């Protein structure tokens, strides 16, 4: 089922203009459940992700945010016990039928802990373009590397040391390197799982700024434990609890005027 309009599983938003419902959603999930063995970690989640918006996933630890995020680029395939049911579409095409290599090139991912490869900075960025054959020649590749590093706000810091190992950078630089690596293959969606949780406030501010700049080009989903961060960087917020998506709407609504009792309790810090 292709759905251009929100279904009834979505929480109706009060301010209709806040949601660009005239657009086709970039990604849409319908009744997605994820199991680890017999255990259900995500229970029938349906959500539409719009492009040019930052969507924040919030919720208490263990509620399944990472699990759901990993379902969106089929990273759960790498966990033998994980099983996904339901339907996830990218531009209307079921991702289960897509080539997983193509899918992951279009839906990039940034992890909680910076994980640069133990290669040079240049090779870290060139990794994706090389395996996907995006560069015709060395000049092309140089250009992609420079552009990606510029977009990730890292170019000025590393342009003189591109041959140094990526693991020799600071934590915040490493995380921006990972973001640059992800955008080097020109994805359409970027998934970020708590990208700032290992960083200090200054590095965090840089990444948040970067996310805000990148928003114009990509659909970004960010998992965060920081309510302030969600409020600062996102336009859409989904609240997860015990494997369910409790509420989804514009960030300002979720934070100032939540519909569900559970959301209100979480936002006001009554648990989680």
């Amino acid at each position, binding site marked *: 089922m292709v759905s251009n309009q929100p279904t009834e599983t979505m929480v109706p938003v009060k301010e209709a203009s806040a949601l660009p419902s005239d657009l086709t959603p970039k990604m849409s999930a319908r009744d997605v459940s994820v199991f680890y063995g017999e255990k259900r970690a995500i229970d029938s989640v349906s959500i539409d992700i719009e492009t040019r918006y930052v969507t924040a996933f919030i919720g208490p630890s263990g509620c399944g945010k990472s699990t759901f995020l990993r379902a969106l*680029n089929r*990273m759960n395939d*790498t966990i*033998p016990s994980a099983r996904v049911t339901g339907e996830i579409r990218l531009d209307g095409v079921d991702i289960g039928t897509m080539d*997983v*290599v*193509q*899918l*992951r*090139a279009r839906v*990039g*991912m940034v*992890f909680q*802990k910076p*994980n*640069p*490869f*133990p*290669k040079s900075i240049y090779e870290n960025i060139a*990794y*994706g373009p090389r*395996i*996907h054959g995006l560069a015709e020649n060395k000049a092309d590749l140089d250009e992609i590397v420079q552009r990606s590093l510029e977009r990730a706000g890292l170019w000025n810091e590393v342009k003189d040391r591109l041959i140094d190992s990526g*693991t020799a950078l600071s934590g915040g630089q490493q995380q921006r390197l*990972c973001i640059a*690596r*992800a955008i080097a*293959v020109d994805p359409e969606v970027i998934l970020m799982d708590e990208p700032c949780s290992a960083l200090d406030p200054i590095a965090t501010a840089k990444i948040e700024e970067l996310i805000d700049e990148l928003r114009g080009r990509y659909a970004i989903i960010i998992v965060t434990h920081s309510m302030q961060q969600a409020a600062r960087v996102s336009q859409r917020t989904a609240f997860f609890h015990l494997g369910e998506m409790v509420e989804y709407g514009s960030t300002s609504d979720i934070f100032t005027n939540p519909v569900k009792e559970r959301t209100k309790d979480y936002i006001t810090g009554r648990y989680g």
Partner: protein
Amino acid sequence: MTVTLILLAMGLGLAGWLAARARAVAFRSAHGVRAMKSLPQYHAWYVALWIIIPLAIFIVIWSNLAPQLVLQSVLSSPAAADLPQFDFQRRTILNEAAALATGRSATAYNAEARALAEPFREAISQTRMTGIAIALIIGLAGGAWSFLRLRPDFSARTRVERTVMVILLCASLVAILTTLGILVSLTFETIRFFGMVSPVDFLFGTHWGPDPMSDPAHADPTRYGAIPLFWGTIFIGAIIAMIVAIPLGLMSAIYLTQYAAPRWRTWLKPMLEILAGVPTVVYGYFAALTVAPAIRDWATAIGISNASSESALAAGVVMGVMIIPFVSSMADDSIAAVPQAMRDGSLAMGATTAETIKRVLVPAALPGIVAGVMLAISRAIGETMIVVMAAGAAANLSANPLEAMTTVTFQIVAMLTGEGSFDHPATLSAFALGFVLFLVTLALNFIALRVVKRFREAYD
């Protein structure tokens, strides 16, 4: 004799253990648990160790000393006056008498032996009584001394702990001292050899053919050129064997860590490691009886007429199979040590598993893989049985793998078991060869360990 003493030591130890424990328990009920610095069994072990350790030392000394004492007392008996002076006969008779006395044989060929049997028996039983008496004294003294030191606040626990540490230290010293001893004796014999044949002739000569029957005083240095042996060793152990072992080992490690389902892995990994446990003699049979003839037939079939039935290729290939587990288990460990985050990072970029292995995992694990290969080489060049059975004895300096070739290890065996006397340069050359081999494998192991260490630090 020794058995009696050991049983005695164990009996005394047990008695001390029980007594000390009873005493400690009595302390505990008298003074309360809080007053006790150590648990009763530490008191018990403290006393038991004070009995057993001195006794163990005594038993070691005594079992070496006792035969001397027996012999001395026999020789001083009147019957010994008739013994012939000639050393060989004398020893035969004494051995016979000892056999008679201990009941190992019923009759003796020499009359003197029969006469000596009785003094022997007496001497043995006397020595035994003395030994038991001394052991009793030592055991009781140690036990009593330590038992009297027991107090409620006695810290038996730290003392037992310290003693255990010393025992462990001694155990590890045995291995280290053995290694040192090997090195010293090797060095010593090597220096003797180099006194007869110059190191230059030995290390750079290209003809190997020591003659154990030649005059030891005038060694012919042109017959002691070890280059063909070094070449054979490297060609078989480090080249042919590695051509087999590196790809197979690496591929099986990759399969096991990246593709095999956990259930398969739990079966396959031990099966692969069994390869390392097969006695090398069995590989030797396999190389000599199956692989070598097959290679010769194949060589003849493709028109190589002079293929021999012993070949470097047969030995090298079988050796390669033997060391697959060395390569694969190190590679397996180092690939598995690459953080999961690297793998996830690569997969999330849209890389396939094969690309991830080739571009991220293997490069990251490379130091560990290299170290594994070096350990495998050092194992291969020290390997003896396979080359003895399959590679041949001819010292050929050739790059043709179908020819017979010989290795350092083979020649060590040949020289030591040859008919040359022990101080002949041909025999001594075995030590020089062993010394070189020892240095090379030591260097390889050392480098490998350094590489592994550096690489461990990379992710911490």
